């Protein structure tokens, strides 16, 4: 008998992988990337990083 928490965990993992796959499919293929595309992706990533610094995630006030 497979424990229910394990089944839930596996379903969650499958959902996460599925979401990742869909996101990747939505991205422009890397071989079609120009330098501008690469820079644009990096800028978006930097913005996300700024919004999710370690201290922000841990709820630590910088002040």
């Amino acid at each position, binding site marked *: 008998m497979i424990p229910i928490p*394990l089944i839930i*965990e*596996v379903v969650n*993992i499958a959902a*996460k*992988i599925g979401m990742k796959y869909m996101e990747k499919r939505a991205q422009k293929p*890397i*071989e079609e*990337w120009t*330098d501008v595309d*690469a*820079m644009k*992706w*990096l800028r978006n*990533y*930097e913005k*996300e*990083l700024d919004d*999710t*610094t*370690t*201290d922000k*995630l*841990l*709820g*630590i006030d910088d002040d």
Partner: protein
Amino acid sequence: MSKAVVRSVPLFLVLLFACTPKSPNLTPRENLLLNTRDWLEYAQDIRVEVLTSVKTLHDDGNLSDENFARFRTAGQAVEDAQKAVILAQKAYILATTEDKMSVLVDMLRNLTDTIMDMERLWALFGGGGE
């Protein structure tokens, strides 16, 4: 199956995915850009996932201040490594010489090391909780 093993499954799958050889049709430059994108995305996902869980554990009184501080240090190391890879990738994209490639590869290696350090720390707690 222990909680730690179950928790390690997604990490293993993502690592397997990231390490799978890319299309042979890609040039070395495209391969490097693709690997960099994969690792940066993975670093962000795992850092956010682990630190969010760490905050919850600490808020609920299930993680000591000392261990909370250890995760903070590990998270900051990954964050700094992410920033270093971003800078190296920008330099590589804008560069006309190949030496920037080796810098990017070094920064990428450093990023994967810091990710693994944080994952090892996370695994010590069985994927969460003391």
